């Protein structure tokens, strides 16, 4: 990424670009690249979801319009955006209009600090990890505002459930991440990735990398479960729960607002997959030259996405009280135990 702003600056007529221009161009270009990449990925999400679910259920799913129905992605997106935008009478504006933008916004902000490999990382602040959790939890504001502003009882129930869920699982999520921070000794995401570069053990020709997922699989499992709840996927998809509360907080949203919510949800799945990859799966690390990093990163987050879809196809949904019980009485305790144990082990060894 580093060379691009310079070459653009050359093309603009500067032999050596002034520093401010370099910075602005770098930000704009990489921002655009990352956003486009992510949005495409998120738009492909629903399509992938349909194909993956079909595989789990002995079906084919979309196969018209291009190979494996790939052009349906475009058709879906354009059609949804071109639909009539219905604002219900009882809607509380402008809250009703603001809420849909909050979700994708918070997810995209989160991606700013994720090291995606091949030198693609928009910013690398020292408190990267804290920043990711901070911005991604803004999403619950969007859910609660959207649910309340719709003036629909199902939306209200859905938003209340989502918020209860976010609060219950945010803490175990952060605590589990903190155990990684203990191991890595830093909050900077690029450093956490760098800390996982070595080899854990060599079993003959196979070298198992020192990813924290291998080092502490227990933490990985905790983080994965908490992430599922955080993004509201089975068994924790109670916020939308179509067979119970129709569509939860998105019940009343149509057209472009619905697209934004939909996009936001998929971006959030990808974001939590990205954080999980960064913390536990060595980030963009993988065999082959370093520029392949982005590919490995993509493979890893899609693998996590696949896992969420697998759960969706095969795991029942828990009830709200059970969800809270699992969160507060199970995961919270386990994540603290994990933190303390890690602290002891790190303290003893280091």
């Amino acid at each position: 990424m580093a060379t691009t702003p310079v070459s653009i600056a050359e093309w603009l007529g500067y032999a050596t670009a002034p520093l401010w221009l370099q910075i602005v161009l770098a930000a704009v270009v990489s921002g655009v690249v990352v956003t486009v990449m992510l949005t495409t990925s998120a738009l492909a999400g629903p399509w992938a979801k349909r194909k993956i679910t079909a595989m789990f259920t002995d079906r084919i799913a979309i196969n018209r319009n291009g190979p494996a129905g790939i052009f349906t992605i475009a058709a879906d997106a354009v059609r949804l955006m071109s639909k009539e935008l219905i604002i219900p009478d009882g809607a509380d504006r402008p809250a009703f209009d603001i809420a849909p933008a909050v979700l994708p916004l918070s997810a995209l902000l989160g991606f700013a600090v994720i090291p995606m490999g091949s030198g693609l990382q928009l910013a690398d602040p020292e408190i990267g990890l804290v920043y990711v959790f901070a911005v991604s939890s803004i999403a619950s504001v969007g859910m609660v505002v959207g649910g309340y502003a719709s003036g629909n009882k199902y939306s209200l129930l859905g938003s209340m459930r989502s918020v209860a869920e976010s609060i219950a699982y945010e803490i175990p999520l952060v605590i589990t991440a903190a155990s990684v921070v203990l191991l890595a000794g830093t909050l900077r995401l690029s450093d956490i990735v760098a800390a996982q570069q070595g080899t854990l053990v060599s079993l003959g020709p196979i070298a198992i990398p020192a990813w924290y997922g291998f080092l502490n699989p227990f933490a990985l499992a905790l983080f994965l479960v908490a992430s599922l709840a955080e993004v509201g996927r089975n068994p924790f998809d109670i916020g939308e729960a179509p067979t119970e509360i129709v569509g939860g907080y998105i019940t009343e949203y149509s057209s472009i607002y619905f697209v934004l919510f939909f996009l936001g949800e998929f971006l959030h799945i990808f974001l939590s997959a990205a954080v999980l990859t960064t913390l536990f799966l060595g980030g963009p690390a993988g065999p082959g030259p370093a520029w392949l990093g982005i590919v490995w990163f993509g493979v890893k987050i899609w693998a996590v996405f696949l896992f969420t879809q697998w759960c969706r196809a095969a795991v029942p949904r828990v009830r709200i009280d059970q969800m809270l019980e699992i969160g507060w009485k199970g995961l919270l305790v386990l994540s603290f135990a994990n933190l303390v144990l890690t602290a002891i082990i790190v303290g003893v060894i280091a």
Partner: protein
Amino acid sequence: MSSDHPRDDIIDTTAPQTKTREDRMSEVDSRFNSTLREAFGSTPFVLTKFDAFMDWVRGSSMFMLQFGIACCSIEMMHTYAVKHDLDRFGSGVPRASPRQADVMIVPGTIVSKFAPRMKRVYDQMPEPKFVVNMGSCSTSGGPFQQGYNVVKGAEEVIPVDIHIPGCPPRPEALVYGIAKLQERVKNGETSPVTVKPYELEQFGDLEKDELVEKLADDIDEETLVMRYNWADSP
């Protein structure tokens, strides 16, 4: 009493009633005028290409309303499911909320109590929206047409694009019907939207006749009602 003649206490007249049919054929109007379409104004060349593209878009991808009424909904579920897999055609995603649906399949008998609710669900769907009538009941009342409570087809209440005959239609027939709908939408063909015989009205707006007088104490002036003129039904 012979079986070919309806009993007197069930139906007084069997003369054909054409009033609703005439209503149905008048005042044709296009349903494709979405806000986006209006925003582009009437720039000829761009617009024809744009129209063609939009028709393709709408014909290639459709979200269905998850909407089961009666027997046909079982076959509809089979159409979504393994063997027939409606999703192959890009139209197998059922949405529970009408706000996010494009196509409403009406799979069953419409009765007097349900028709106003169905009308409301239809109204809640965003334009452009399409309706597929599945089975004889939603086409004409089917085997229950003579019933005191049965609306003689969904088209008495909402506009319908495709009728699929059968009781119930096989999943293959439903797939064919959806494919036909997609073909029509891709070709930019629209169905006429006309005044329906049964609409939701405010009770206060109804003509004051014997029945309205009788109910005046029970129903608020502003309550929405649907008035069934059974004798006029085709």
